[in-house]
């Protein structure tokens, strides 16, 4: 693909030597945007609960503070019982993010264990593990989560974390199994087998390091699932309703008729926080996809060489050094020279 050439596609900027490009600079824009957005939420989760202006559960008895619109004292307004929405939001972001990250870690570990074992052990083990994976992939998780959590005592987060993680691994296991099968057939695995490395060593030092990007993408997806599922479960009341998460905030807003009362400041902040966290994770994942699959890369760059769109049927474009920048009189004088004709080509004229 032409888009992968290590040459700057913007004719105005000389191509920087690849050595100078840090890992961060090489990331696609989407991944950067996602990482920054997610970073903001992580920051809010870390320092938020320390700087909450009020106790999120404190019900201000003053009648005038029931359903108060956002103002200087309550930046995001108050709930029907006079609780500060901003304080609830800051505490809720931490709670939701903590839970989602924990679920992500546990479920991803399960995915790796099941996926790698299925591919490495092979035979009957593979058949059985794949069958279990596929069955749990096709059974809808949310209704199952609902009966599991319905029967479990609703005291802490532990039950929610364990149940969400217990149902969140199949997709990752399937992807990781496929990747492990592909890697297992490569020569370097055969070589390490020949040199007498143990199966465990091969798994830990040859296979898993080659799947890091896949495992990372899977982790991001699982966190996304955990946020969505935990918020949905809390929204229908299946969570510890005396603690503040984004889902319980939405639950109270819905059950106390925030919508009918027109109190948008009550249900919009937690919902937007969920949506933005989700967007950050989707952006991060799409960006990582693009890193691995250059064809998916961003609109302006994809299929463009030297600023000109190239179709697959066109002859292979040949890149040339971008023209030197000239200013003022030099540019005027240059426009009469023969070499100025080359500039037009580089700027999107005929690449031939």
């Amino acid at each position, binding site marked *: 693909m032409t888009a992968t050439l290590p040459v700057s596609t913007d004719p105005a900027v000389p191509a920087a030597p690849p050595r100078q490009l840090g890992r961060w600079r090489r990331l696609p824009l989407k991944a950067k945007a996602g990482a920054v957005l997610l970073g903001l939420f992580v920051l809010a989760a870390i320092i938020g609960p320390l700087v909450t202006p009020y106790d999120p559960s404190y019900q201000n008895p003053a009648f005038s503070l029931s359903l108060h619109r956002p103002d200087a004292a309550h930046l995001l307004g108050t709930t029907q019982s006079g609780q500060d929405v901003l304080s609830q939001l800051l505490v809720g972001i931490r709670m939701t993010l903590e839970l989602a990250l924990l679920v992500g870690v546990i479920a991803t570990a399960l995915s790796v264990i099941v996926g790698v074992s299925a591919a490495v052990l092979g035979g009957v083990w593979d058949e059985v593990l794949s069958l279990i994976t596929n069955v749990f992939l096709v059974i809808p998780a949310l209704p199952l989560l609902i009966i599991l959590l319905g029967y479990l005592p609703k005291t802490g987060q532990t039950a929610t974390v364990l149940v969400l993680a217990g149902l969140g691994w199949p997709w990752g296991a399937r992807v990781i199994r496929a990747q492990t099968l592909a890697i297992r057939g490569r020569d370097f695995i055969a070589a390490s087998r020949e040199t007498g490395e143990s199966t465990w060593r091969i798994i830990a030092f040859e296979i898993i390091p080659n799947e890091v990007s896949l495992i990372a993408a899977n982790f991001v997806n699982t966190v996304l699932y955990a946020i969505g599922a935990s918020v949905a479960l809390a929204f229908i009341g299946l969570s510890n309703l005396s603690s503040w998460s984004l889902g319980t905030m939405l639950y109270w807003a819905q059950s106390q008729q925030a919508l*009918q009362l027109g109190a948008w400041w009550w*249900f919009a902040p937690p919902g937007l926080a969920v949506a933005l966290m989700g967007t950050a994770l989707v952006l991060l994942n799409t960006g990582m996809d693009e890193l691995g699959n250059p064809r998916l890369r961003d609109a302006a760059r994809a299929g463009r060489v030297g600023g000109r769109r190239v179709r697959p049927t066109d002859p292979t474009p040949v890149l040339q050094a971008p023209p030197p920048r000239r200013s003022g009189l030099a540019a005027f004088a240059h426009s009469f020279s023969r070499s100025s004709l080359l500039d037009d080509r580089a700027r999107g004229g005929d690449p031939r």
Partner: protein
Amino acid sequence: MPFILRRLGFYLVAAWVALTLNFFIPRLMPGNAVQAIMSKFPNLQPAAYRALEAMLGVGHPGSLWHQYLAYLGDVAHFNFGTDVAEYPAQVSTLLAETIPWTLTLVGTATVIAFLVGTALGILAGWRHGGWLDRVLPGLMFLQAIPYFFLALIMLTLLAVTVHLFPLGQGYAGGLIPGWNWAFASSALYHSLLPALTIVLTSLAGWMLQMRNVMITTIGEDYVLAAQAKGLPSHRVVLSYAARNALLPQLQGFGLALGFVVSGAIIMEIVFSYPGIGLLLLNAVTSNDFPLMQAIFLVITFAVLLANLIIDLVLVAVDPRVRAQGAGR
């Protein structure tokens, strides 16, 4: 045919796993479920106590194996037991009242979203770098919004602020459900906003996936060959690229269905739509376990059935699937 038989076997196994989980979950949970339920509903009769015991297997009437067989037999006859919250209503009656609503709304909206999303994905993949790519971040935002939150936003904007749509419910109050114009038009009117919500949130996912598969497919040599032969663009796009990109898209549709349907069902709660979602909420808030479990089974079986239909479609449209079946 071998492919379909193999898939059918797989769905039977999946259905059996769901049934078995449903049977064992209440029996493995800590505490006495019957006591817990009875204490919440003081008006229950002793007969209900025994019925609950039988269903939840607490009083041990017969061995576990006998209970299991009896349970499978009950489910086969659509007998999900007696409801505890609305005692003595039968769970199956409650389900029969709500399933048509959900099936029509969620089913139609999901299929529309899938078709439109796939079509847009084909366009975005073919015109890679075009205007559709520019709205991608916006689509990702839509995709990340929980269904029920978008429902809240839509209601605020289009029903509370601008009185364009009704505030919820399945049909206008005072109407009696039946096959007449007044009721049908009212039901259609009330379903527009929920349907729009489902389409908006799930559209982006199908579109992004189709776009990515299309971009990869368009890089294949046979697409280049088709272009080199001078075939018209629409033929290259539809018959060469899109047709091949459709296989992973349809498979993804099957796997994502459970997720989409669950999300849509939660969304019904916001609209007070008289479907399974609202029933589920009532079941959860009143600890109505028989109803919760029956809803789990109904949703699971619906998703399995939809997956089977998708497999049949795959066999019909994709010769590779047929060849794969014959090869084994």
